[in-house]
C-alpha cells in the first residue's frame, strides 16, 4: 500500500465563499495580517498496485475533483 495525498483546491478566479467567510472571521478575532484565504480538501488514500500516482489522478478525474471549478495535485508519500 502506498500513501497518496490528493489536494483539491478551488480554481483561481472561481468564487471561494468558504475562504472569504474564514478570512472575515479571522479578522474579527483580531488576526490583522491575514490576506487571502483559500480552502480546499486534503484526501489521504492508501493505494495498492504499481502506479498509485496514476491511479490517484484517474480517481481525481472521475470522482475526487470537479474539473470545472477545482484543480488537483497528487503527491506520493512513503
Amino acid at each position, binding site marked *: 500500500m502506498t500513501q497518496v495525498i490528493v489536494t483539491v483546491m478551488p480554481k483561481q478566479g472561481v468564487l471561494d*465563499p*468558504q475562504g472569504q*467567510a*474564514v478570512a472575515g*472571521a479571522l479578522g*474579527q*478575532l483580531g488576526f490583522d495580517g491575514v490576506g487571502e484565504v483559500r*480552502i480546499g480538501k486534503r484526501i489521504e488514500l492508501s493505494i495498492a498496485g504499481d502506479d498509485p500516482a496514476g491511479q490517484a489522478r484517474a480517481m481525481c478525474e472521475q470522482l475526487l475533483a470537479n474539473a470545472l471549478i477545482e484543480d488537483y495535485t497528487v503527491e506520493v508519500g512513503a
Partner: protein
Amino acid sequence: MSTTVAVLRFPGTLDHDSAVRAVEGLGATAVEAWHADAALPAGTDAVLLPGGFSYGDHLRCGAIASRAPIMGAVRRHAEAGGRVVGICNGFQVLCEAGLLPGALRRNSTLSFVCRQMELEVADDETPWTPGLETGAVISIPIKNNEGAWYGDAGTARVVLRYRDNLLGSTDAVAGVANAAGNVMGLMPHPEEACDALLGSTDGQIVLAGLIA
C-alpha cells in the same frame, strides 16, 4: 412580569422569526440579540440560539458564530445560572463555544435530512422536560446536514435520544445539557412543533424551559 428571551441573530440565522413566534406563543417576550453586540439586551432572562447556517456553515457548523462578540455575554449569562437553549445550528454553536460537551458531525447518511422524529426523554430532571418522565416520547422534526452528536455519552447529561438513530449520533443523542442543566442544546426543532396546525405541539414542552 413576563420572561424576556433574547433570540440571537447571526448572519445566516434562518429560524429567528419562527423562534420568536414560538417564544411569544408561550407568553414570553422575545427580543433580538445582534451577533456583533457585546452585551445581551437589557432585561434578558433567558437566551435562545435559533437554527440556521450562521456564516454559511463555513469551516465547521457553528464555529465562526461561536467566536462572535455576543457569545461572551451568552457565556456570562450561562455561568451565572441563566437558561440558554440552542436549537440545531444554535446547538452546534454552544458545543463549539464549549458551553456544551461534544461536537456535531456530518450525518452518517451523508445527506441533509428533514423528517419528523420521535424522541425519548433520557433525563426527566432538567428544566427542558417538565412534566415528562424518563422514557416518555415526544415528536419534533429534524432538518440538518451535520446533526450527529459526537462525545462522551457517559459523562454528558443526555436529555433526549432518538428512537431511530438515523443520523448516527453517539448513543442516539438528540439533545444534551450541561452538568447544571441550565444550558441545553438539541438538533430537533421545537419551534417547528409549537402549533397543532403544523402537526405537533411537543416543542412547547422543551421551550417552556426558557420560562423560569
